[in-house]
């Protein structure tokens, strides 16, 4: 009874998929050690920064209150959205489960953990969107799991924020090409049409 075997096999596969959902316990942001690192992020100038041009001076060092530093292997520095830039944008939502959390999608730099103070001069990437940001550093262990973090703002994410204006992505050459092809399209149509009308008139007058 081949059909019975097929149905049983697919049912077993289905069950396996069901169970695989609940297999791993999700790692949570609230489990991480807070303020393990002191982080500062200083913009290169006042006002709204331009993506691709302006820089941030980022420094981080182990905080005096840190406890889990024995596990720190790597430090991941990331650019994160402030709450005002998350409004009406569910793709930037803050979630407690780390794998779902979309607060800090932009990587700045990754460095091996060093007890002494570290710094990095970061030029804002050209694909950073317009918004308000802060900097967060995650301390990651040997298994690539986050254990602690520090950020350049307070817990409510209201202080020391900076704004970035994205590049437009538009270029004069693109605009010109766009106009040229559009004009070509309309002209080609008109030329065909007028030509055909003329031929029909000639045919008729014969």
């Amino acid at each position: 009874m081949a059909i019975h075997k097929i149905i049983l096999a697919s049912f077993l596969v289905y069950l396996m998929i069901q169970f695989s959902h609940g297999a791993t316990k999700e790692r949570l942001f609230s489990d991480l050690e807070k303020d393990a690192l002191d982080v500062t992020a200083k913009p290169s100038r006042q006002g709204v920064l331009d993506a691709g041009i302006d820089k941030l001076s980022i420094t981080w060092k182990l905080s005096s209150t840190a406890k889990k530093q024995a596990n720190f292997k790597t430090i991941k520095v990331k650019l994160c959205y402030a709450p005002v830039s998350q409004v009406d944008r569910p793709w930037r939502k803050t979630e407690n489960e780390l794998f779902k959390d979309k607060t800090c999608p932009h990587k700045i730099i990754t460095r091996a953990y060093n007890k002494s103070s570290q710094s990095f001069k970061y030029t804002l990437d050209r694909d950073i969107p317009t918004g308000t940001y802060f900097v967060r550093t995650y301390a990651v262990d040997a298994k690539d799991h986050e254990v602690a973090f520090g950020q350049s703002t307070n817990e409510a994410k209201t202080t020391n924020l900076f704004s970035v204006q994205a590049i437009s992505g538009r270029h004069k050459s693109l605009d010109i090409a766009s106009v040229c092809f559009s004009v070509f399209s309309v002209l080609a149509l008109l030329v065909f049409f007028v030509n055909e009308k003329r031929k029909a008139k000639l045919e008729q007058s014969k």
Partner: protein
Amino acid sequence: MGDSTGDTGSSMHGVSTDKTGKYDLPVDLEDRATVFKLFSFAKPHMRTFHLSWISFSTCFVSTFAAAPLVPIIRENLNLTKQDVGNAGVASVSGSIFSRLVMGAVCDLLGPRYGCAFLVMLSAPTVFSMSCVSGAAGFITVRFMIGFCLATFVSCQYWMSTMFTSKIIGLVNGTAAGWGNMGGGITQLLMPVVYEIIRRCGATAFTAWRIAFFVPGWLHIIMGILVLTLGQDLPGGNRKAVEKKGKVVQDKLGKIMWCAVSNYRTWIFVLLYGYSMGVELSTDNVIAEYFFDRFHLKLHTAGIIAASFGMANFFARPAGGYASDIAAKYFGMRGRLWALWIIQTAGGLFCVWLGLANTLVTAIVAMILFSLGAQAACGATFAIVPFVSRRSLGIISGLTGAGGNFGSGLTQLIFFSTSQFTTEQGLTWMGVMIVACTLPVMLIHFPQWGSMFRPPSTDPVKGTAEYYYVSEWNEEEKQKNMHQGSVAFAINAKSEDGRNAPSTITV
């Protein structure tokens, strides 16, 4: 426009002045092919088929080209969720109006000009996407690009002039289904083009803009091909065609009245909103749904979204074919039953999709829903050519417009507010589909019957000839304007079911 002898409608471009009879395929009284040879490009019938579906597909590619790139575009243009949703509604709303107009254009100018004009005049709208800088521009351009979906009407109209009624379900279903596939193709094409451009060195926010040149060029290429290789009429000696009165000069007002005063038109407008309409809505929301609810990666969600649209490849022609099979045994009544069953089944699977809690059940439900909705589209347009002969273009246009209206409406009610989660929206959309498919039961043709009533036994009023010729008044009949309808009525005897004559004599 047309010949200077005063014939409006179809141009004589491409029509040979040789005697009729030299076609690659067997033809009927109106020179329409009676057989469908898929892999042929012979003129005029199969060449028209391929030109028609490819240009329609190109328009689907450009209308939905933004959807898979939204994750990049929303960051470049600083869009909110509402902006993205509104752009989705805008993309399907533009063609509500353009499909209506296209119906009239086909009746008056012919489908070849209709198609070419629309495809080439909408190329600038596609190119202008590379210049937008904010939400308002994005919504406006998506709205304008959406106008080109009216090529659906020219496509269906063109098929109806080239292929006979017995196979029109299959032909229309295949042409439209393969056209609709463009909505699936674009979900794979645009991300690939974008990635290639990025690898060549462009930044993200420039690469997506350049990517839009590809659908723009497709528009220009297809427009030129349609103009050079296409023809409106299958052929025939010009004088013979004029003498038989096939190409008639008709008045817009009369055609419109004929269309809107026929109650069946409005039932199909509603029905199509809940087969095609829900398909378009799902095209816009399904990738995001799978991404959010089942935590898939974006490209995985994109592949699922693409497969929803690509099912059109066989689903829509299958619907048309099923309708033709039902007609073979049960005539028009069979077609009506087939439509009701298929569309209701689609609605029930949509309900299931919203209720599915696991990824596997959701994918199964989605596939079955796509088959039901898309086959129903095919089955709808297997019947529409029989509603009227005189106003075929306008009725096709109105039905097509109904599809887009249904899409805008369902997106607005179920997927743009916080009142429903997306899964609740899908379930309620399924319920609405089932409810709005019930009016099929009201469609009655005196010569063929309806789902629950047999055909009329009146010897005069119960004939196909009476039905189609009564669209013309006495004055018009004096001028022999109705001869096309007489020929159509004779060919339409295929809808009598098992009682249909196997050979058609004149």
